[in-house]
Structure formats: structure tokens, C-alpha cells
């Protein structure tokens, strides 16, 4: 699907452009070579020592351009990068680097977007050797991902969409629009101060957490009766509160329970942003917090106000109470105290602690030796379950490899935007076989021992589905609770 040639994919729906245009010299090996032509022939391994020579021997030579080049060279060692810039070309964010030193690179990205836009078209991705470069131009911002990890343009677009949502969640779409209407070359970094932690964490999660890939959340495994009494405690103390929209209890980035106002749903992508916020903000552990947050799928133009607190010193589950009323802090604070008291009385805190300490289940618990690992998403509820990564996927290289396989298979099964949905795919690989099965109710991706006969696979997978069915009430939240 990709050779050494470099080509650009354009969005046909936008304008009359062609879908594949070769605008770059096919001999060029990577995106970064645009910046410094003379370095095309350099080997990557030589770069670091050359850098140090540069800086120590003749520091006077280090002008702005060579500084840029040095940063670009250090970026080349990364498998994946994400850049955010304004339409005016102002740097906003760079994963794994200082955006300040990349002004010319940002200028190039801006130029690429606009030179295609001049033809009433939109640039979506560029393939350059092993690299794939995806673009998303949304609102006043441009998002660019550069990767050699083998993601498809669709997956990179998903990642960039999340990056965009994160910025909206911090500022709201309306504020973002207004800022750039007033001053086209505004330096947005001023307003995003501190949000880079959220962005770093989100971008890491997009690669490592199957939740984003599946568009689903995983739930803390709990006995249904315990989960019910937790939900019940929340309903008891919150049902009378006007304007409270969502009450969410998280433990280790897993959902314990979600209670919502009857007429509103929480989109998994919004929930991912909340989980990311809690996971990347340690300051919530210090005290009760009260913060505005925008959930882009819920309302991209307005803020909700979140009361965020950990349940107790002896129970590190995080409760989020989201309301539209900015004056409700003390009311929610009181509700939280009531919830905690009730949870303590009914021994729910211990149950949560136990479940957190267990940390999940392994394939040994499932006891189907031929299956090494799996992802199972319950489609109607957008929840998923997966065992812990155990051998041979317990080292990070193998784990990454498996996740990349899942990514690739997911892309093959559910091509976004296309009508073609595959139902069942079985792939025999060198190290494992993969079975992917998509129905109206579930998506299953299972990694299977490579030496298992094809005929034996389906019975094993059926056994797995039976096991999931039997554990369903612990692994998933089956009933949705409302105020």
C-alpha cells in the first residue's frame, strides 16, 4: 500500500482535486527532509554526536536556522509526532519537542495546507516512504501528525480529532473562534498554559489504550449488587439537585458508575476526555476542585462545571459531578459527603479498593490456553473489556506490536466512512493468529496461538464468548442509571 513514492491524499468531497497527487520528489525519504535538503544522505545514528560537536566547538555558528535544524534532527528519532498550529502559522504545540524552535517547520505545514486549499481542496494525508503525515484543519487550528508506526490515515485523523476535542474542552469552540476572529495571529499558548500535560497524556493514551481505538470505556470489575448500591447512593444524594447533568465515578481510569440526567447521554469521546483529565491532573488528589470543562460532543460552545474529588484518603476513586450551574459547588460538596458516608456504611469503599487492587483479570482466569489476549467491545453500551497483558505480551515491545496489530485489524474491519464492514477476518501471522469478529452487538479481536488449527479456533472463541457472557454482569454496566 505504500512504496517509496510520496503522494498526497486529498479530500475529494471538498473540491475538484485529484485524490492522489505526487507533489514531492519520490527520492526523498522523510518529511523532515523538506527542511534541510543537505541532510538527506545523513545517517540517523551519526546525528547526535555531530550535534554535540556543533554546539561545543563553535557556538557562534549556532544561529536560528541551525538551531531549527538541530531540533528537527532530534525529532527524527521519534516514531510519532503531533503538531498544532494556528492558521496564521503560529506554533501552539509539539509532542516531544519545543514548538518555539520549529517556526520554519510550522510555516511549511501551514503552506502545505493552504496551497491545497487554494485549489478548493483539503489536504488529508501525505505518504512519504515509511512516514505518514495526516492533516486536520478544523476551525482556526491546524493539526498535523507524522508517524512511522504504520497507522492508517484514518487512525491518525482520529488521533488529531481527539487533540482538537481536547483544546475545545479547555477553551470551548466559541471562545476559540472568537479569539482568532479578533486577532488572527494570537499566540494560543498563553491560554493553553498547563494543558500540554493533558495533551501529552492524551497522545500517549491514543497509542497505548485500546479504549480510544474502540471508542469505548472499560469498567471496573465489580459485583452488580455493589455497583447498584454505588449508583443508588449517588442517585439518593443527587437526584434532587437541579442542573446536575452527570455523576461519574472513576477508578484507575476505569468507569465504576455513571449516573446521568434522563434526557442527556454522555458520548464515549467526552468520557475519554474526562478520564484523561483526571489521569493527568494529580492536583485533584490534594483537595476538592471546582473547574469549568467543555464536553465537545455534549455542547462544544459552553462550559459545564465539574466538582472533582477523590472519595477518601483510603479510597482513591475519583467522583466527578458535572452541572450547568456555576454556583453549585457547596451543594455538590455536601452531596459528595453524603455519598461517601453511604458508601462507607455499605462497605462499598472496600469493594472498590479490592477491585482496584486486583487490577483486572488475566487469560489464566479465563482459562482458554489457545487464546493469548483479546479485546471485546459491547457495541450497544460502548464498553469494552480486555485481560491484562500477560506473556508473551508482557514486555513493552511485544505489547506495542500487538496493539499495532489490533489497530490495523480494527481499521480493516470498520473502515470509517465506507459502507464496507467486514464481519469475520482470520489472519495467520508469524507470531500469532488474529481473529476479528464484528456483529451488531459486539466487536471481538483475539490473538491466538499461531499453531492452532483454523477449525479449532471458532470453538475456542465461542468458549471465550460464553465466558464473557457469564462474567458480563461484573465486567460491564448493563443498566444505565438516571436521575
Amino acid at each position, binding site marked *: 500500500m505504500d512504496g517509496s513514492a510520496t503522494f498526497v491524499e486529498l479530500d475529494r468531497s471538498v473540491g475538484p482535486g485529484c485524490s492522489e497527487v505526487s507533489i514531492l520528489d519520490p527520492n526523498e525519504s522523510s518529511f523532515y527532509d523538506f527542511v534541510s535538503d543537505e541532510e538527506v544522505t545523513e545517517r540517523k545514528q551519526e546525528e547526535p554526536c555531530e550535534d554535540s560537536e556543533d554546539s561545543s566547538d563553535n557556538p557562534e555558528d549556532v544561529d536560528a536556522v541551525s538551531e531549527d535544524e538541530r531540533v528537527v534532527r532530534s525529532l527524527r528519532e521519534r516514531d510519532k509526532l503531533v503538531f498544532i498550529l494556528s492558521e496564521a502559522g503560529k506554533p501552539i504545540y509539539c509532542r516531544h519537542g519545543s514548538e518555539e524552535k520549529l517556526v520554519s517547520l510550522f510555516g511549511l505545514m501551514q503552506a502545505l495546507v493552504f496551497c491545497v486549499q487554494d485549489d478548493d481542496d483539503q489536504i488529508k494525508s501525505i505518504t512519504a516512504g515509511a512516514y505518514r503525515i495526516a492533516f486536520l484543519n478544523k476551525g482556526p487550528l491546524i493539526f498535523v501528525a507524522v508517524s512511522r508506526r504504520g497507522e492508517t490515515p484514518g487512525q491518525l485523523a482520529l488521533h488529531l480529532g481527539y487533540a482538537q476535542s481536547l483544546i475545545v474542552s*479547555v*477553551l470551548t469552540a466559541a471562545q476559540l473562534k472568537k479569539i482568532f476572529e479578533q486577532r488572527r495571529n494570537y499566540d494560543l499558548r*498563553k*491560554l*493553553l*498554559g*498547563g*494543558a500540554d*500535560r493533558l495533551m501529552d497524556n492524551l497522545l500517549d493514551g491514543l497509542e497505548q489504550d485500546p479504549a480510544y481505538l474502540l471508542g469505548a470505556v472499560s469498567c471496573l470489575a465489580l459485583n452488580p449488587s455493589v455497583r447498584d448500591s454505588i449508583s443508588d447512593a449517588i442517585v439518593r444524594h443527587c437526584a434532587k439537585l437541579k442542573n446536575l447533568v452527570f455523576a461519574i465515578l472513576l477508578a484507575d481510569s476505569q468507569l465504576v458508575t455513571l449516573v446521568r440526567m434522563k434526557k442527556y447521554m454522555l458520548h464515549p469521546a467526552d468520557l475519554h476526555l474526562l478520564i484523561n*483529565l483526571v489521569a493527568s*491532573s*494529580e*492536583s*485533584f488528589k*490534594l*483537595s*476538592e*476542585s*471546582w*473547574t*469549568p470543562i467543555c464536553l465537545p460532543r455534549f455542547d462544544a460552545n459552553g*462550559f459545564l462545571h*465539574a466538582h*472533582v474529588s477523590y472519595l477518601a484518603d483510603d479510597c482513591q476513586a475519583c467522583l466527578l459531578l458535572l452541572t450547568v450551574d*456555576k*454556583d453549585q*459547588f*457547596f451543594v455538590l*460538596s455536601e452531596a459528595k459527603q453524603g455519598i461517601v458516608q453511604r458508601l462507607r456504611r455499605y462497605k462499598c469503599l472496600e469493594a472498590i479498593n479490592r477491585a482496584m487492587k486486583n487490577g483486572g483479570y488475566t487469560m489464566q482466569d479465563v482459562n482458554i490456553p489457545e487464546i493469548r489476549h483479546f479485546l471485546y467491545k459491547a457495541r450497544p453500551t460502548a464498553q469494552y473489556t480486555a485481560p491484562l497483558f500477560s506473556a508473551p505480551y508482557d514486555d513493552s515491545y511485544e505489547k506495542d506490536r500487538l496493539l499495532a496489530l489490533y489497530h490495523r485489524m480494527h481499521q480493516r474491519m470498520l473502515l470509517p466512512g465506507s459502507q464496507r464492514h467486514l464481519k469475520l477476518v482470520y489472519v495467520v501471522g508469524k507470531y500469532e493468529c488474529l481473529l476479528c469478529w464484528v456483529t451488531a452487538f459486539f466487536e471481538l479481536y483475539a490473538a491466538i496461538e499461531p499453531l492452532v488449527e483454523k477449525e479449532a479456533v471458532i470453538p475456542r472463541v465461542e468458549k471465550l464468548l460464553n465466558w464473557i457472557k457469564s462474567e458480563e454482569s461484573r465486567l460491564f454496566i448493563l443498566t444505565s442509571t438516571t436521575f
Partner: protein
Amino acid sequence: MELINPTSVFNADIFSSVLVMSQVDVKVVLLGSSGCGKTSLVERFLHDRFEERYMPTIGAAFGAKRVKALGKILKLGIWDTAGQERYKAMSRIYYRGAKAAIVCYDLTDADSFREAQFWAQELLKQEDACKIYLCGTKADLTRGPEGGRNRRVDFYAPTDFTDDVNAGKRRKPHDSEELFQAIADDFISNPVNEPIVQELPSIHVGKDQPRPSGTWSSVCCSY
């Protein structure tokens, strides 16, 4: 300054501050640029702990503590706000109805003092009943033989500023405990707060010695 502004704009605020009063007796807000040490100051006061890592506050964090002041017990409800620029637009949610504001600046960062001046002006405009405490932080970094070089906010800058806005007195609390104690004492001794103070539980019988207090206090502290 003692009079409550009767214009309609403020009516809502008076109402909300009454609501707040039913929960905590004295609302104290911390404002200032990000990373200047607001959370550290509060953490030291509330829990007597110090966290080495920098963990930026999201939105605002709330904490409360009872203090004894001039024979009365009152509860300080402390709002520790995030210093990031993006919260500025909605900072009013956090500071309105506050009886005291600790406006922090980092003694080793000149920009943070400019920002502190912004906050002080903002509070003067918006919150008549709020007493403002300018607080220079990280004083420990400016001490010692090397320390002088770290100092970026001139010793006279805060006093010049308070002179400009026509108020001010300098105090030197040595730790966050003393700073919050000073706030509590000022609150009790301020005649405006008399109706509230009368209802506070007393810890001993006897007439408290009222202490003189200006509208402004300038304090420096390290923790």
C-alpha cells in the same frame, strides 16, 4: 468601602455571598500567576505538607480550616485558584464574595508581580468588601549569599504599589500559619463584620482588644 454597593449588578453577588456564609464563615481566595506557589502556601496551612513536584491546579481547589482569632472561632474557606491565563475570564466565580484575597507573586519573577497588580486592581474594582493581602513568595530563594541575584521584584515595588492605591501596611508573617492568622484577626476586628462576628462561637469570655487595621496589607512570607 464599608457600604454595600446597592446597584443591581451587585445584588446577585450579595446573595451568593450570603449563601456562602452559611457554609463557611470567611471566604478567602488566592490569586496570582501560575507556579508562584499558591497551592504550596495553602497546603502548608491546611495540611502542613509540601509537595516537591509541580502539580498545576485545575480550576480551583477548595479547603477549609477552623482558626481561633481574638477569642472567636471561625472557619476559613479557602479558594486556591489556578494561575493559568485561561481561567482569568471566569475568575469571578471564585473570588466573588471573598472577604480576603491573598494575591501572590513570586519574588524571583518580575512578571508575576505585574500580574499581582492586575489582580489587586481587579479586586479593588469588583469586590468592595474584600481585604487584599499582597504576598511575596519563595523568599527562601532570595536569601543567602547567592540569593540576592535571584530576586526580581524590588523590595520597594509592593510598597510603591500600595502607596499608589492609597493604602497599605507592611507585615512580616514568617509562615502561612501567621498569614492566615492575620487574615482571621483582621476579619474579627473589622467593625463591618460585627454582625457576623457576634454570632460566632466564643472561646473565652471577655472583651477582645480591637486592633487597628488598614484596608491594605502588604506581607512577605516564605514557606
